[in-house]
């Protein structure tokens, strides 16, 4: 039966139908829902791993054991998983294995705009690229076939617009494959130099065989038009933009397999038209390849390698008419994302700003501590970089910044890749202060469990990492726990730990205010008689507090009664109940 399905959900459906039985992933927008949806199928074992490297390795282990496996992540997650990626390319698989990577052109929820297609080329792995939900299902199934036929992990490349768009699909039934027998095979699975040297030629031969496959694979589709003047090579969501603006007369080579590319097909397509334009987001990946074949093609001279494309951008690049809307002639203030009312991070950031500290930040909801009015973060790079970064910062300053610099990192991010940085602080002895913002959930990606929460992906009780004991075990002697709703406590503990002559960890512990089990207090209200209009309560950037007619006003639909603002009010104008 026809139904609307999110691209990510469709990939999960494809995994299910193809008989996938093992999923290990780390959440990351825009990839998260693939794994969340896969977890809903009883036939699929699904888990959140602590990071993408662990997830890929676990999925490889399942493949080795003979079960079809899957691992999903966002583009930057593949950087973390790149180490196993490049070597499982050499070993190949036993049962089929898919690694989905979701790019975020336009950086809707990411720290960079890298183009993951380059990984397929660098790791010499096949990559499929669906352009809608129906292809999400079809390509997941095709990926398992390719994986087993060519003895290779297969990359499935998503992008925000395919991952987070619903389109029509027709699901079918699951076909349960028999578990493949695991046979010991050291030359294939032990990648030490003697064996690996013999595997590299296998990889190169496989790539050639895959390129031959790509020449006639139905996922690479030549949509022949009558107009010989223009031909377009495209894939993914760019294909949809091209089809939106070009009539059926225009020939389109729609690539479903983006690596390896089919030389003969590209050449014969190029020969069939007067002018070839490659329409692709971010890098000129296909364009550059065509040029190595000696083909005359256009692409990045017409379309930017920055930001995502759209139908109007494609139309403009092709010299077609572009619909012009008219914007209201008015200064519209921006509406950036903010920390929610009641967010436990707010009290901590207020304190860090008040103490005028250097704050080495990290990836999560708490990155929002960087925006006005808190403006409390100095740098944000990638998962785990705060804990490693503060060590280098303090070492380079020969101890001069020990007393005025902290690192902040969330509980899930600390599990992901903060722990190793903390080991470095202890082992190489910097007097650094790390604050773990423990809100007991992976927040920004939409509330996923992690090893510190006590629950697994399926919602069942699970082993819970004891953060205090872990930090002690890694070599940190000073471990303190504070409640970020208690500003006085936060300030005194931070001052003490910054002054202490050795490394410390401060665990700022309070669950995310959006968690269903968190009970909110009654919203506060403002006694306008008492309010002296000093705006002290406005310093914390709470979306529930605004100024109306010269007095503070609390939006009772948003306020969770956390009481952080109340601690800033010297005239007792913010009152409970």
């Amino acid at each position, binding site marked *: 039966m026809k*139904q609307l399905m999110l691209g990510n959900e469709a990939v999960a459906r494809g995994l299910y139908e193809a008989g996938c039985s093992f999923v290990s992933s780390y959440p990351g927008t*825009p990839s998260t829902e693939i794994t969340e949806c896969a977890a809903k199928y009883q036939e699929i074992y699904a888990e959140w791993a602590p990071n993408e490297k662990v997830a890929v390795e676990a999925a490889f282990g399942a493949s080795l054991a003979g079960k079809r496996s899957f691992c999903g992540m966002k583009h930057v997650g593949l950087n973390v998983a790149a180490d196993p990626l490049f070597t499982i390319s050499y070993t190949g698989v036993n049962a089929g294995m898919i690694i989905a990577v979701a790019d975020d052109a336009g950086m*809707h929820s990411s720290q960079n705009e890298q183009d993951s297609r380059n990984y397929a080329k660098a790791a010499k792995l096949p990559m499929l690229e669906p352009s809608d939900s129906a292809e999400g299902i079809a390509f997941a199934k095709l990926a398992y076939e390719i994986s087993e036929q060519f003895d290779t992990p297969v990359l499935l490349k998503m992008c925000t617009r395919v991952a987070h768009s619903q389109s029509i699909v027709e699901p079918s039934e699951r076909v349960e494959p028999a578990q493949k027998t695991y046979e010991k095979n050291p030359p294939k699975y032990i990648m030490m130099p003697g064996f690996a040297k013999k595997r590299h030629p296998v990889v190169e031969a496989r790539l050639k065989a895959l390129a031959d496959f790509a020449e006639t694979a139905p996922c690479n589709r030549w949509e022949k038009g009558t107009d010989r003047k223009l031909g377009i090579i495209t894939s993914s969501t760019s294909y949809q933009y091209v089809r939106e603006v070009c009539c059926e007369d225009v020939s389109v080579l729609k690539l479903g397999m983006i690596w390896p590319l089919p030389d003969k097909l590209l050449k014969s397509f190029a020969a069939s038209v007067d002018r070839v334009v490659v329409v692709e987001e971010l890098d000129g990946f296909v364009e550059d390849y065509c040029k190595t074949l000696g083909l005359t093609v256009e692409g990045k001279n017409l379309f930017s390698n920055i930001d995502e494309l759209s139908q109007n951008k494609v139309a403009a690049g092709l010299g077609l008419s572009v619909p012009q809307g008219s914007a*209201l002639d008015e200064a519209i203030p921006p509406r950036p994302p903010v920390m929610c009312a009641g967010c436990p991070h707010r009290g901590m950031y207020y304190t860090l700003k008040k103490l005028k500290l250097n704050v080495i930040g990290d990836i999560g909801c708490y990155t929002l501590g960087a925006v*006005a009015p808190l403006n409390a973060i100095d740098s944000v790079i990638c998962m785990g970089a705060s804990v490693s970064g503060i060590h280098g910062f303090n070492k380079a300053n020969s101890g001069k910044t020990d007393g005025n610099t902290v690192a902040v990192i969330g509980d899930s991010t600390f599990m992901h890749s903060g722990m190793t940085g903390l080991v470095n602080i202890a082992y190489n002895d910097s007097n650094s202060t790390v604050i773990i913002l423990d809100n007991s959930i992976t927040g920004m990606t939409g509330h996923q469990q992690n090893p510190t929460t006590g629950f697994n992906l399926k919602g069942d009780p699970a082993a819970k990492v004891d953060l205090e004991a872990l930090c002690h075990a890694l070599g940190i002697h000073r471990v303190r726990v504070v409640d970020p709703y208690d500003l006085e406590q936060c300030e005194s503990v931070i001052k003490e730990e910054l002054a202490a002559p050795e490394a410390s960890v401060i665990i700022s512990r309070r669950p995310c205010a959006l968690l269903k089990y968190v009970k909110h207090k009654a919203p506060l209200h403002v006694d306008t008689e008492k309010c002296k209009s000093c705006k002290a309560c406005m310093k914390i950037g709470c979306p529930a507090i*605004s100024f109306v007619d010269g007095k503070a006003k609390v939006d009772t639909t948003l306020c969770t009664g956390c009481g952080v603002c109340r601690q800033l009010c010297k005239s007792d104008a913010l009152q409970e109940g």
Partner: protein
Amino acid sequence: MKTKNIMIVGVGGQGSLLASKLLGRLLLTRGYDVKVSEVHGMSQRGGSVVTYVRYGDRVCSPVIDTGEADFIVSFELLEAARWTQFLRPDGTIVTNTQQVNPMPVITGAAEYPAQLVEKMKAAGYHIDAFDALSLAEEAGSSKAVNLVLMGRLSKYFDFTPEEWQEAIAQSVPPKFLELNQKAFALGAKM
């Protein structure tokens, strides 16, 4: 049929995903090709959010670009103004008149523009503005603004009340069905 475009805009957390889910189901039952594009992740944290709903004989792009929207349905007045450039010259803005201050306004770095409805009318936009929040509260919950807006939007379409009711029943949890039906009816009656 030429592809029709509906944008649903608002502030992250206001419930625009439910509205797009409902519209998607409704349009699918009529046999249209449908695409719905959502926003997840960082923007959901109180930022400006937009969801695209497109339908027709064959829908290709999942997003709506400038000058293309037949309807902009807005949960918040400033957001209606923000996306005006996406409206077709003959398009319609259906908006809640509720104002939610963005952080730059809260901190005093910017001002919430005054008299936006009047300004949009004067600029020639066809705008249908009303207090959806009060109607939602009348229905029983301020969170039902999405169904009030869908009720209002229903006046511009030829779907039968039964078709809308079925799509609502498919889209909301059973225990909130009555509340949502009431909110829809209040919006449709306006």
